């Protein structure tokens, strides 16, 4: 016998408008940054940030930064998201499935977006823009926040997740700069793209599972 799904909180009209604005803003920022990256407009600023990041490198930070950076990969995010969805499935199977689909879509979108801008990373390897690590962690944290909100988790949990998630996003973004793997523009592009993707994901999930 299938366990009945717990009721999900629905977005208000104002919240939907705000998410739509966030989507449009994120998409606009993503493409604007892509254009600036392609036209090399940000080269000087990016180089300054990169120099600063490289000047901070020490032996002690090397391993922790690699570990933090790996948190943004599919190898870590995939299993963690799957485990989280198993927990969510107990409360709402449809939401768990939708979150898994959004996560898979995010991974595909982050990698597909890389064909927009053909530029080299600081270590000369191609596919710099956007940072898929940043994109992935932003989508993961955003969807986690939405799930907690939709399932009406205690506000203290949501606040803790918000703070922890923001710190995680910052840490992963910083680690990509530290490891000489991305320019600041790539990290910002990943942030903007990830936010836009997550906002679209939340709007679609709300429309399909709650409103519709």
């Amino acid at each position, binding site marked *: 016998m299938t366990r009945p799904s717990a009721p999900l909180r629905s977005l208000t009209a104002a919240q939907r408008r705000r998410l739509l604005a966030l989507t449009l803003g994120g998409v606009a920022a993503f493409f604007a940054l892509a254009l600036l990256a392609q036209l090399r407009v940000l080269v000087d600023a990016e180089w300054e940030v990169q120099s600063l990041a490289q000047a901070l490198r020490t032996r002690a930070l090397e391993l922790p930064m690699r570990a933090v950076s790996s948190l943004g990969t599919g190898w870590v995010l995939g299993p963690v998201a799957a485990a989280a969805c198993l927990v969510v499935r107990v409360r709402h199977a449809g939401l768990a499935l939708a979150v898994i689909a959004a996560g898979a879509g995010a991974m595909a979108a982050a990698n597909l977006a890389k064909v927009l801008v053909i530029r080299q990373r600081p270590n000369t*390897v*191609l596919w710099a823009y956007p940072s898929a690590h940043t994109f992935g962690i932003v989508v993961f944290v955003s969807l986690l926040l939405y799930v907690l909100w939709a399932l009406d988790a205690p506000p203290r949990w949501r606040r803790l997740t918000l703070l922890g998630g923001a710190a995680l996003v910052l840490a992963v973004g910083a680690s990509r700069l530290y490891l000489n793997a991305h320019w600041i523009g790539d990290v910002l592009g990943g942030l903007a793209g990830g936010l836009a993707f997550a906002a679209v994901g939340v709007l679609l999930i709300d429309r399909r599972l709650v409103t519709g």
Partner: protein
Amino acid sequence: MAEPCPRCSFPDVPGDKCPQCGVLVALYRASLDKLRRGPGGPVHAPPAAVFQPPASPSAPPPPVPVAGPPSTLRLSFHGSALGLFGIQAVNALLTLLTAGVFYFWAKTRVRRYLLGESELEGDRFAYHGSGRELLVGFVKGMAVFFIPVALLTILPELYQAPAEIRAALRSLLWLVGLLIVPIAMVGARRYRLSRMSWRGIRFSFRGSARQFVGIFVVGTILMSLTLGLYYPIFVTQRQAFMVSHAYFGSRKFDFDGRGRDLMRPFLVMILLFLPTLGLSWFWFSARRQRYFTDHTRFGATRFRSSVPGRALAWLQISNVVAVVVSLGLLWPWTVVRSVAFTLRYVSLLGPLELADVHQDAQAASATGQGLAGLLDADFGVG
């Protein structure tokens, strides 16, 4: 303050040289800085906190570090058909949306991808050209080429000029073409090399178009007079000109091949052309490629090619079949495998001494590239 190696990420390099990969940190950083500059972009002195010692603004650009002990170096290609297919899909979409204007940016994106996926000694090559340069070059090329050709072909028809005048104008047109093709070839090479770099050091081409026009015109006439038998000498002269005027930073490439060395393989190819249904051409083509590569030097480094005729024949025939059968959809696959094929069979023998190589800025416009595109005299992939 000890800093990490910018190339292999070895933390806390004790001195100037990385104990893991041997790169000179400050110089490597300066090279990376240049790598990111667009054509003619300024090269700033790096911040003292990162680069030690700080470069003096008046000092000449620093040399690139010596790249390890003498050995056989291989070029490698990391590109994939899927990656290029994605780029082409975006290119096709944007070219359609912009009624063809994006074509020049699309070309630049493909070149950037192909060079960015090519690697020597752990570092990728870089392409710095822009779509705008190609567009401007194309417009200038049209003005230089299209207007005279239009005048020489349309006006006599409009005014119904006598047959003698038309014949004379046709000859004049042929002469114009004979002059423009070599100019376009030199311009294209000058532009392309000036937009390529490795470890932040630009390539360049410093041959004079006038000299190449001479080689081209004389060679074309002698080709006609000898019914094509002059081809090996002609093509070797062209290669010698193109290679021996090419530079990496301040150091030039050298070519010591002689056309007569290819004469015998060429005659054998002609004799076997019909019995082998034309396949002997691929054998000769591979022989020519090996000969040209083997006679190219860069300082003490000699290039070596081991491309076999059979593999070249299979590559080129299967590429044509794949493109035709797939109606062009497999074009990215053919490009990627062609570049990978070319690099697979090329090696560099001897020490790659780069210590005295430094940046030597050369100006180049894209007009020759635009002309070459118009005349289909463009060479190379992408």
